[in-house]
């Protein structure tokens, strides 16, 4: 006998209704399994303890109270009126929790409609066409996306960062191009010098771009 099988038979064992082979098998299992033996001891102990417990007696006035509260007549055989049978469910819907739930649902939908610029009063049956609804949602999404992009681009901070980045990129390009120049390449030297001096003029000095580059790297 396994511990699980013992657990099923334990109630009958404690009741004293277990007989024959099952009882013998259970007894031999208990002799060899300390965990089951402890369980059986606990269960039997509690059952014996509960038998010594006094029953909970109701106070005498409770009976009077119940009999006083019970309506007289024959309620169980009473026939329900037809309107109660048909519209009884309406009463259930008027419970506060359902009413609150419905109110919250209506409020949520009205808020969503407001944010989506849907005017329920101007709704027509043709507006409920799935294709039209889809086109409307698509259109609104694109507009919203464009508006967001435009707003982002117009932010002063974004413009400043973009212009600074552009400046740094130009300076890096200018620096990279100057060491690559060959000293003996006289054909293009004059024109390149001109371009370089032009860049330096915009930078103010020859040292500043380097400082700017190192700052950026940091």
């Amino acid at each position, binding site marked *: 006998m396994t511990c699980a099988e013992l657990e099923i038979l334990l109630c009958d064992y404690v009741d004293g209704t277990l007989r024959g082979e099952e009882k013998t098998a259970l007894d031999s299992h208990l002799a060899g399994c300390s965990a089951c033996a402890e369980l059986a001891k606990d*269960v039997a102990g509690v059952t014996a303890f*509960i038998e010594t*417990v006094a029953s909970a007696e*109701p106070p005498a006035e409770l009976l009077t109270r*119940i009999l006083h509260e019970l309506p007289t007549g024959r*309620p*169980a*055989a009473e026939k329900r009126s037809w309107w109660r049978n048909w519209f009884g469910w309406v009463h259930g819907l008027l419970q506060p929790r359902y009413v609150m739930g419905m109110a919250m649902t209506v409020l949520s939908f009205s808020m969503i409609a407001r944010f989506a610029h849907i005017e329920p009063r101007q709704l027509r049956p043709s507006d409920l066409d799935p294709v039209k609804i889809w086109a409307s949602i698509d259109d609104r999404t694109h507009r919203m996306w464009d508006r967001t992009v435009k707003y982002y681009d117009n932010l002063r901070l974004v413009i400043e960062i973009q212009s600074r980045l552009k400046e740094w990129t130009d300076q890096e390009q200018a620096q990279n191009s100057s060491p690559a120049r060959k000293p003996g390449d006289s054909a293009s030297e004059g024109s390149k010098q001109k371009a370089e001096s032009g860049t330096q003029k915009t930078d103010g000095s020859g040292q500043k771009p380097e400082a700017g580059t190192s700052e950026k790297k940091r």
Partner: protein
Amino acid sequence: MATVAIPAAKWNWVPPYPRGRTANNLDADAQLVDRCLGGQDAAWEDLVKLHTRRVYSICYRFTNSDAEAQDLTQDVFLRVFKNLKSFRSGEGLFVVWLTRLTRNLLIDHYRRTRMDRATDSIEDQVKVLEETTAVLARTDGMLAGREASEVLQAGLQKLSPELRETVILRDLEELEYREIAQVLNVPEGTVKSRLNRGRAELARVLRRHKVRI
């Protein structure tokens, strides 16, 4: 006297009469229900008198409050009064039907008062523990009667509702396993498993309170 048509039994088991209840008791229940449905006020009084103790006891053991148990007992009988027509004596015992109704009300009540219990329980447990310790010092761990009842009451409150109701229905109300299975709407094996777990847990709680079992 009004006669009630008894439909063919829906359950396959043949009921041997439960402990403490005889064929006469069961007949008396069936006759009382018939008389109640026939509109006899005196029958209602007899029905209430006959079953108040059982309903009150289940409610008291479960809630651990006399006031709540009284209110719930009253609610149970009001519900019996309204729904007795739905009981068919051929489909089972009146006691099982009544216990199921009581249990459903108790579970509703348990869910409703969950928040209140969270704040009250600590104070109550400390109080019961102090009282138990004092009693045990006097009785050398051997308890009986009213004192045992109070200690058991405190121990039952430590069990989960599932285990508590099973122990109450079996060990205090002495229902049969199949009846408990019908009341709780679970298989008989589950009833026995819960009973073992409930009793073992209760033994641990009582031992922690130095009660000799």
